[in-house]
């Protein structure tokens, strides 16, 4: 009796944790997540009452449908690579930097300060100073959150989110009628335009792919090497998976947290450089418009891998680009992309968990033996 029960219990399908995650399983789970995200996005599109095939066609065509579209996608991916790297780097160390949005703006503001100071210098020197200032602008905000965390035990999630709001009000003041940076005589909250000669050069003719894309790629490789090959990178990763051992080893954790947030903030600040000198050419209130938050999604989608961030950013750049075409063709608001991003993130998060399990057909060895006894 008990033997029979045992056989029925041990035979059949069983869900169990995977021992190791192979690349193909990871890839498959992302594909599945995308299918799920497409399904949910379709439901959202149906609320707009459009033809789904037409809508997805427009999205795809707008993203990668032509050389021109592809170039635009590269341009839109540039800031996402950098904010994605910012999130990935910090999240590796389980430092929850949610402040990419504010750090991007802080970087851009420092970049504009560089314009007011150094616009007379030779162009290569000027660009280097701009990049340095933008990095420092973002890094300053990042390190401030780090300092608040190690010195006053202020949760970095709270401080980075609050600084997103604070820096936006600061920008609003700088661009207000009483503020020093407001374009004279302008009706809008904006600075003067950066003169054409000082804007970031375009990398490919007749495209909007600017120097910022190159900066983003170099940053991705640098972060990859730093995380994988340097002692600092090892420490940041260890901070994420085993902070106790790190402390035991005698690493200065406080310093490490501050350095991580400094680098993370700096990367987001660099994204501000591209938006200021390559896209908007002036400071405006909606300079970032969610790029910092989108970076979090890009980083998660990439599994926090710096090179994966580049791919994920290209995908999201394409999505943003496609959404504009979607709006022109079908009239669906381009804000669709904001909704779809969050849906993708939720599906990816769920699929990562599910991919850690496998369904396996099990035939228990013991029950095989018992059936052999009968023979």
């Amino acid at each position, binding site marked *: 009796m008990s033997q029979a029960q045992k056989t029925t219990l041990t035979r059949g399908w069983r869900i169990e944790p995977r021992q190791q995650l192979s690349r193909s399983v990871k890839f498959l789970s992302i594909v599945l997540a995308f299918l799920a995200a497409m399904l949910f996005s379709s439901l*959202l599109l149906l609320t707009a009452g459009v033809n789904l095939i037409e809508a997805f066609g427009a999205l795809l065509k707008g993203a990668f449908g032509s050389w021109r579209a592809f170039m635009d996608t590269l341009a839109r991916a540039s800031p996402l690579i950098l904010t994605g790297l910012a999130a990935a780097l910090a999240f590796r160390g389980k430092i929850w930097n949610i402040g990419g949005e504010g750090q991007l703006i802080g970087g851009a503001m420092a970049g504009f300060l560089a314009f007011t100071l150094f616009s007379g210098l030779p162009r290569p020197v000027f660009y280097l100073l701009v990049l340095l200032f933008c990095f420092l602008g973002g890094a300053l905000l990042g390190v401030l959150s780090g300092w*608040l965390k190690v010195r006053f035990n202020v949760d970095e999630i709270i401080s980075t989110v*609050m600084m997103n709001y604070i820096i936006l*009000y600061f920008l609003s003041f700088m661009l207000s009628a009483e503020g020093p940076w407001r374009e004279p005589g302008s009706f809008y909250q904006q600075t003067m335009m950066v003169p054409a000669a000082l804007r970031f050069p375009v990398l490919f003719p007749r495209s909007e792919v600017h120097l910022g894309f190159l900066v983003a790629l170099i940053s991705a490789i640098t972060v990859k090497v730093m995380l994988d090959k340097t002692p600092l990178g090892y420490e940041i990763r260890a901070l994420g998976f085993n902070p106790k051992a790190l402390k035991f080893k005698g690493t200065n954790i406080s310093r490490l947290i501050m350095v991580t947030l400094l680098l993370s903030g700096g990367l987001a600040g660099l994204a501000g450089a591209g938006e200021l000198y390559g896209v908007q050419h002036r400071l405006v209130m909606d300079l970032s418009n*969610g790029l910092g938050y989108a970076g*979090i999604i890009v980083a998660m989608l990439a599994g926090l891998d710096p090179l994966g961030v580049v791919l994920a950013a290209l995908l999201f750049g394409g999505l943003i680009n496609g959404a504009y075409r979607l709006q022109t063709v079908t009239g669906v608001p381009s804000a669709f992309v904001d*909704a779809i991003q969050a849906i993708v*993130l*939720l599906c990816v*998060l769920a699929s990562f968990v599910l991919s850690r399990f496998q369904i396996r057909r099990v035939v228990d060895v013991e029950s095989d033996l018992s059936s052999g006894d009968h023979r």
Partner: protein
Amino acid sequence: MSNQIFQAAIIASILASTIRLATPLLLAALGELVTERSGIMNLGIEGMMLLGAFTSFMITYVTGSLWLGVLAAIVTGGLMALLMAFMAITLKVEQIVTGMALNLLGAGISLFWLRLMTSTAKVDYLITDIFKPVQIPHLSSLPFVGEIFFSQRWLTYFAFFMVPVIWFFLYRTKYGLQIRSAGENPKAVDTKGVNVARLRYLATIFGGMMAGLAGSFLTLAASPRFVAGISGGRGWLAIVIVIAGNWLPWRITLAALIFAFLDAFQLHVQGVGVQIPYQILLALPYIFAILAMMGSRARSEAPSSLGVPYTRE
């Protein structure tokens, strides 16, 4: 003499605004308190508040019923919290990232549907009816205090009414004790045969419903329209308020009132015409939030298992 009357009127007006502006903060913070007490860190309440504000606005706009709007906000918050609970409790996904995803979801969907509504109606913005203040008989005609406490909207009365209710629930009922235990020592709760996951699901959904309700205050009581990002960080402030209030209902009420006062102060200083850039005044609650976190280093009441998934062995 007339100057004194003027000053008294301004003070009464600031305090009345404080009580009014505390409403969404208090509602969301009390909900988050119950959620966190059960051991779940829900960082998605900003998104729940935002989408709640939107759906209440949309349903009221379409049906003309304010009450259906409130119901829609509660349902929206509850559903989003159900998703949060599923991800955090059943799938055990990192709660911080899940909460962020829900914030982005709330922002994205509300913006998408708002654009859809305005482009279909071919207008720049839509306006709905809002709740009128409810004058409490006799009390509202008292000088000074009448204006401050007894001429508010029903949601405000409800928010403050919930303070003793939540306190009683958490500290004087069996379920309240179970929820607090689930946040402290889930294993002990499990050993007694109580389902930890179920408790946490319910606490999370309750928190979401309260966040949604808080959102409805923004569009059905504070302003007759919905603008993108109308929650403006209030969900995050609610999370700060829970920490600053050391996870205790009365302290949370006090913290909510302080944040609301900063907001009210900012509103009135602008009106009087004081020469401070108004952007700095607007940033005050967020600056104060960081300062409050620096001050509240003693977090004696923080649930020990906050944010830690529970796995049965």
